[in-house]
């Protein structure tokens, strides 16, 4: 036993030197090289342009079509319910809290929306408060258009809100590096994925390997640990990554988020949850057994159904969660 321990120790001492010699350059770079480093977006249009990934579809059509079907493609609008929820966040929360500084939509700043936007639109952090106000104004206008049956305004605002989403550049650039002091900041013009090299695109001429593109921590940035308490008035919806680490992995689970939601499901970039038939089948075992029995209670004999129901969570995180 003692000899074995000494050999392991020697291996630990020797390995780092060899490892450092072979290390590649970090995938990221200085903070000033980020997409948002030059200036903050002052309008929704500027924010959309800052993270415009519409040119990706030319070569990545299948991934684009998959993504279009996912809620990532309309992360602010959702089914309409998400957009409406931004408004009720203001009415039922911000405007009621005495120290939020918000009485109405005109008072809203980026910090007020980050409770929602930290996941639904993380790039809002790269915008000025004017964008936060414009988003709220657009949501109010969209809801007014619904009430007044003003289809032209409805469609205009809906399109504007749907333009704010979790697109290619959000995952393959902005969120592609978590530990930025270690790996560098994601650089403008670089698409982060599984390879290094040239990328045949004028806007994004380089590819770089993201250290986390295949790791659950990539998704964990939004589908969070939780409850996260980092905001001045914390709010939290998703705690999936926390339960993934502390229950699923701790009990021997080995799959990553991407393995189930992208590969095993066959959904690729159309990441879904329970409404997808493939995810639905994988997520849960459900079993019921029923039999008839007679029950004699003194002089009375009564028949009953003995029904046993069991459900087992086969997902890699708590249900429900997101």
């Amino acid at each position, binding site marked *: 036993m003692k000899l074995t321990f000494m050999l392991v120790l020697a291996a630990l001492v020797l390995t780092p030197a060899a490892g450092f010699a072979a290390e590649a350059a970090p995938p990221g770079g200085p903070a000033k090289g980020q997409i948002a480093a030059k200036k903050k977006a002052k309008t929704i249009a500027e924010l959309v342009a800052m993270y415009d990934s519409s040119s990706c579809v030319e070569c990545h059509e299948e991934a684009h079509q998959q993504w279009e079907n996912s809620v990532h493609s309309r992360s602010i609008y959702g089914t309409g319910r998400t957009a409406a929820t931004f408004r009720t966040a203001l009415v*039922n929360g911000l405007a009621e809290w005495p120290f939020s500084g918000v009485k109405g939509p005109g008072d809203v700043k980026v910090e007020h929306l980050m409770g929602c936007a930290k996941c639904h639109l993380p790039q809002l952090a790269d915008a000025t408060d004017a964008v936060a106000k414009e988003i709220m104004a657009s949501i109010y206008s969209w809801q007014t258009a619904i009430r007044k049956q003003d289809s032209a305004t409805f469609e205009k605002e809906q399109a504007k809100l749907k333009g704010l989403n979790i697109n290619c550049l959000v995952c393959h650039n902005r969120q592609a590096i978590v530990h930025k002091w270690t790996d560098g900041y994601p650089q403008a013009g670089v698409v982060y994925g599984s390879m290094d090299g040239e990328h045949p695109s004028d806007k994004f001429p380089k590819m770089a390997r993201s250290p986390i593109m295949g790791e659950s921590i990539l998704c964990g940035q939004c589908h969070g640990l939780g409850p996260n308490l980092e905001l001045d008035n914390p709010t939290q919806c998703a705690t999936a990554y926390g339960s993934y680490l502390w229950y699923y992995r701790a009990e021997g689970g080995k799959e990553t988020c991407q393995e189930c939601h992208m590969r095993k499901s066959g959904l690729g970039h159309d990441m879904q949850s329970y409404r997808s038939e493939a995810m639905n089948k994988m997520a849960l075992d459900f079993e019921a057994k029923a039999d008839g029995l007679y029950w004699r209670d003194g002089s009375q004999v009564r028949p009953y159904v003995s*029904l046993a129901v069991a459900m087992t969570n086969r997902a890699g995180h708590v249900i429900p969660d997101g």
Partner: protein
Amino acid sequence: MPVPQQFARGDRMGRGPYEKSGLIEESGLHPGKTKKEHFQIFFPEEVKDLDVHVQLWYLPYGTMQSDPFLWREYKKSVSISKEGK
């Protein structure tokens, strides 16, 4: 309700995703865990055959009035013997 209304103080917490910054205890179904229920459903008088229909619903907003989702179901016709005492 898009923001927490309960703040993990004393004995008060809320239901739903928005309330997770005010959780006191997590009561969801955790990975690999099994939840079992057993029911005894008495036959109505004179009835010897009963159709059992079990439905598992996911209620993202807590009620059947708001976006309910039928997740699984089970059907079985259960009969009891018509002889004996």
